[in-house]
Every structure is written in structure tokens, then in C-alpha cells.
């Protein structure tokens, strides 16, 4: 199994957020999690990435034969987990090029691969950026600093395509995007998809799933997955909302 979440219960500040959640993802699969606001979708993404504000009450997560809780945030990232943030944070004064260059090399180091040199990296970055319709000038700016919402999301996808993760988690990447930006973002995802990597797409709206075809759709309500199936579930939600699952 690639990613296996078993009976996961999580709380934050005395509030139970995830309740005995189960989810299995195999290599090459695209999963979508849909749910109303506050159902615990983003918490799940952050628990997977290793954010430290949460208290794990119960359960196990296995990722590529590792007990995920044995790995810290950066180790998970180096193992191939990528989280595209819902609200990417600004880091003033830090340029994307050295930032991503260090990131890719720390991953390669863990995998015992050779580090990529400055020049090859600059080339890689440029070509990926132009694939995603990202202006070269944007690469000269500080990470996320002064970016519009759409620019930030595109920038997340650029980072994802550079780091080429085994498991990419997209946390509400569609929120705040107009149709054009949504197309660029989803194109990026579709280009990256292979039979060896997996995607976990967290979204509130069905719109995104018009562009990225998930193999499985899960409905999450009140901290647990209440229904799983194919893309027909997304259509159901589009029609009737989340009401009937609650």
C-alpha cells in the first residue's frame, strides 16, 4: 500500500477534528476529498504533511513503508510528499531559485541521488515555468511576496512540478481561482500525473473535478469519510449539496 490511513483521530485545542478516519491510496491513483467547510479536510492535509499543532489521539498512517509519525515535516517532504497550500505564506527577501534549489537537493540527498548544479537547475526552473505560463520576471521575486491569489497557486504548482512528488496533496487549490488560472493549474497537475505518483485533491467545489478526473471521490463530513465512490458522487454533490450526507 502506498498511503494507508487507519482509524485516525486528531484533536486541536480540545476539539476533536478527525474521527476514526480511514483512507487508502494506491500508486497512480487520483483521489478527491469533498466536504463542507470545517469538516476537517485541511486538518487531514496538515496532519499528513506533519504540522505540529495537532494532537494525534489514535490511529496509524503508513506512507511508502514508513510509519509517517516517525518522520518530521522535512523528512516527509524529502520522501516525496508535497502539500500545495491553501494560503501560501509570503517569505520576503527569499528568492525562489535558491529556495527551490536547496529543496530539490535536500530531497536528492535523502534519496542518495547526485545534487543538481546551479546551471542545470536554473534551466529546469525556466522550462517548467514556461510550461505553466509563468513569467520569468516572477521568478526574480521573493517567494509568494506580493503575489495575487492566482499567482500564488500557480507558483505552488510550479514547485510541485519541480519537486516531482510521489504524493501530492492539493489543499483547496481551486479556491480563489478564475477559470483561466484554474485551467493552468489543472493542466499542470494532469501533465505531472504518471502511473507512479498519486494525488489527493481536497476541494469544496465540484468544478475542479471537471478538469482533473479523479479515480475515487470521498465525501467527508464531521471528521470522517461517510461515502466513497467514483466521479458520480461529485455530480450528486453538485446537484444536492452535502446536506444528504450529514
Amino acid at each position, binding site marked *: 500500500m502506498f498511503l494507508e490511513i487507519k482509524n485516525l483521530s486528531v484533536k486541536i485545542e480540545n476539539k476533536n477534528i478527525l474521527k476514526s478516519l480511514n483512507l487508502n491510496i494506491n500508486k497512480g491513483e487520483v483521489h478527491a476529498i469533498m466536504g463542507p467547510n470545517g469538516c476537517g479536510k485541511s486538518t487531514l492535509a496538515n496532519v499528513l*504533511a*506533519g*504540522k*505540529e*499543532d495537532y494532537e494525534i489521539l489514535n490511529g496509524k498512517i503508513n506512507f511508502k513503508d514508513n510509519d509517517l509519525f516517525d518522520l*518530521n*515535516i*522535512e523528512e516527509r*517532504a*524529502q520522501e516525496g510528499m*508535497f*502539500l500545495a*497550500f491553501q494560503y*501560501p*505564506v509570503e*517569505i*520576503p*527577501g*527569499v528568492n525562489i531559485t535558491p*529556495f*527551490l534549489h*536547496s*529543496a*530539490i537537493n*535536500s*530531497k536528492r540527498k*535523502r534519496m542518495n541521488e547526485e545534487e543538481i548544479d546551479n546551471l542545470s537547475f536554473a534551466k529546469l526552473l525556466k522550462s517548467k515555468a514556461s510550461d505553466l505560463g509563468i513569467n520569468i520576471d516572477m521568478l526574480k521575486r*521573493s517567494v509568494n511576496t506580493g503575489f495575487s491569489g492566482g499567482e500564488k497557486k500557480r507558483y505552488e504548482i510550479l*514547485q510541485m512540478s519541480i*519537486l516531482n512528488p510521489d504524493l501530492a496533496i492539493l489543499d483547496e487549490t481551486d479556491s480563489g481561482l478564475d477559470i483561466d488560472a484554474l485551467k493552468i493549474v489543472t493542466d499542470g497537475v494532469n501533465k505531472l500525473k504518471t502511473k507512479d505518483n498519486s494525488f489527493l485533491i481536497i476541494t469544496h467545489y465540484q468544478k475542479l473535478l471537471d478538469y482533473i478526473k479523479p479515480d475515487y471521490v470521498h465525501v467527508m463530513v464531521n471528521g470522517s469519510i461517510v461515502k466513497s465512490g467514483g466521479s458520480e458522487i461529485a455530480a450528486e454533490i453538485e446537484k444536492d449539496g452535502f446536506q444528504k450526507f450529514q
Partner: protein
Amino acid sequence: MNSETLNTLDSYSKNKYKYGFVTKIDEEKPKKGLNEDIIKFISLKKNEPEWMLEWRLKAFSKWKKMKEPKWANLNFPKIDYQDIYYYSAPKGFDKKPKDLSEVDPKLIDTYNKLGIPLEEQKVLAGVAVDVVFDSVSVATTYKGELEKLGIIFCSIGEAIQTHPDLIKKYLGSVIPAGDHSFSALNSAVFTDGSFVYIPEGVKCPMELSTYFRINAENTGQFERTLIIADKGSYVSYLEGCTAPKRDDNQLHAANVELIALEDAEIKYSTVQNWYPGDEEGKGGIYNFVTKRGLCAGKNSKISWTQVETGSAITWKYPSCILKGDNSIGEFYSVAITNNFQQADTGTKMTHIGKNTKSKIISKGISLGKSQNTYRGEVSFLRKADKARNYTQCDSLLVGNQCGAHTVPYIDSKNNTAVIEHEASTSKINEDQLYYCRQRGLSHEEAVSLIVNGFCKQVLQELPMEFAVEAQKLVSISLEGSVG
């Protein structure tokens, strides 16, 4: 603050200082203590003319009547001026060696270890260096090259011998001996330092640099630097400093005077990395420095850039007197304090001439149990029509036991003056750390990256060759493992 951040902070505070070694060399030292005899001794050692000795003794008599300035937000035991050596030189150093073959190999070795090779062919291309070891200048590189352009770059001791007219005219002209007790002290007992004169219309083709090293125990270093940029000239100058690890505090009280005549520009950069003391706050350098530049002529410019990472105590306010019309003063500062370090640093911009401009960018980073204060004074005199100042002070707190303070004074006697001031204080942002780490950067790398980003505005003002070094130094000041 989560536990991992605290762990990393803990490892930072075990910060290793890689310049902490001692060179075992026979030293010549007179007795400890400050009195007329020691001043006469120094003057004699330096083979100074009578007028120089008188100048020193006058400063000393002023010092005796003065008290230490008290405004700074610093806490330290009273300095016992009688418990300090005021002169220390490697034996046989009565005359400055003519060339490197006359220099004790141990000294050359010391500088190699510090990453400052003295052989010109190995020196960083395009940088001329004067190196000062305790109380004496050891070597000055590229002197011949510079002489061809009429540039004088030598130790101040030499300049007193060879260029008495310039010394008489300018020494103490920007920082009068009686300015405050540390300037009086320095004027009385200064030992060595650099002298630079750039003739009219000459753009100095290389960076000039002085490297100060305190080696001997219980010894104060009182260096004096004087830079004069004649009409239409330009010079960029950099100083670096280190000292061995010792349990006692050592005093360093330097005076640096800059004079820029009409249309001249001086860019002065400092990378200060004196021994900061250990994680319990034991030892370290007391750094009481007076740096002041006079924009004497029209359209002149003086720019100070400092990266302050060392010293147990830093008391330092590189300032500009903007006398010439349209003259410009700039101050760019990064001050990092860790463990029990205390820094009270900033600048004074005095606008006298019309259309004078000043710009202040200060970045303070506090870690551990340290205290970091920005203190600035911007004043506009009556005739400073349409003068402008822009001040930006940002403080970053890492951990919850340190302090950041901002004390800006503004005094305007001219109502056409324009003053802008921005200030911010923030904690290192957990979301930024999370973001970096999610991309695979270690916690330490992430902190270093964020702090370097925070300082970027200042670091990019440094000469190219040193910007990279300074970035590394910033990282080392944060990291525990390098050294």
C-alpha cells in the same frame, strides 16, 4: 513556539566561534594601567613627533574629567581602566616589517587560518588589505599599485610620520577628542589603524580593507582610522574583526573618521565578528566604537553598512554630518544578538546643508537571552532646507527570552524637512518555517533562509566579494554546527 523550534534554538545557542584560537607569540607589553607614562610609552614606541604626544596628553586630561555615556540600554560591570594593557605587540616589532619575509611566520599563519592570506597573489582579487594585530599594523598589501594613483593606504602610525600635514588637519576634526569618554580614551591611547587618502578625481580601483585581530589577553584594542576622499573621488572600504575566545571581557574602543569633500563618495562596510562570549555570557569583547563621517563638500556621499554579529556588548552609532548642500548619508545595519549579547546600535544623521538626504535601514535579530536596541537620532538644523530622511527599523525575535527595542529621536528646526519612519517588530513566523520545511528544508536551513531574507536589503549593500561571506556569517551566527 513549538518544541522543535525550541530545540533548534537551543542548538543555536551552543553556537561555536571558529575564530577563537590564540596565536602563541612573544609579546611586548608595558604594565597594565592608564596614565601619562603609558601614553608616553606608546608615543615613543610609535616614534611619534612631539605634537602627536601633546595631542594625546590633551585628550587624556579631558578623559580624566569625563564619565562614560549612560544613554545606552546596556548592562555590564564597571570597566576598570587600570586593569587593561594598553599596548601589546609581537616582540621585535619596533619597526613595521618592510615586506612579508620579515614577518613572523606565526603571524602569517594566523591570518591564513582566519582566511586572510597576506601574500598578494593569494589575496582576494581586487582587495587591498591592511592587517592590524593587537596594537600594530602587520602588513599592507597592494601599496605600490595604489601609490601609482596617488592613493595613500597605510597604517595610521606610518601616516603620522609620512603625512603629518593631513593628520594635523583632519585627525580629530570629525570626532573631537572631548566628544565623549570613549573618544577621549581612544585619542589618548590609540595604537594603530588605517589611513586612507584618495586624491582629487581618483576612483579607487579596488576595495580597501583592514582586518583587526585582538590576540593578547587583557588587552584593549584602540584603533584609529581616518579616511579622506578628496574632491570627486570614490573609495569603498571594508573592515573585519575577530578575537580569541577568552573568559575575561576585553575592551575595544575604536574611532573612525571619514571626510568626503565636494562630489566625493565613501562607502564604508563593517563585518564585525568579535568573540561574543559563551552561552553563559562569560567573556567576549566590549565594543565601544565611535564612527562618524563628515560630508564636508557639496554633493558628497557617505554610506555606512554594518553586519554586527559578534561582541558581548556593542555600542556603536556610525553617523553622518551632512554639511555640504545636496550631500547624502546612508546607514544600513544588520545586528544579530544571541545568548547574552547586548547590542545598542544605530546612527545619527545631522542635516546641516540644503537638500541633504539620509536613509537608515536597520535590521535587528535577537535570539537566546539577548537584547538588541536600535537607537537613532535624525536632526535637521535651521538651514537644512528641504532635507529628507527615510528610516526603516525592523526587528525579528527568535524565541521568547530575548528583547528588541527601537529608540528613534527626531529633532527638526526647519519646517521644510521631510521625515518618513517605518518600524516593525515580528517573531519568526511558524507558518514560514512550516512552508520551507514542507519543501524539504531542514529547520536550521529554514531559519537561516528566513533571517537572510529579512536582512537582504542590507546585505546587498555590501561589496560583492563580502556579501556572500556575510550571508554565511549570518547563517553561522544562527547555526550551532559550523566551526
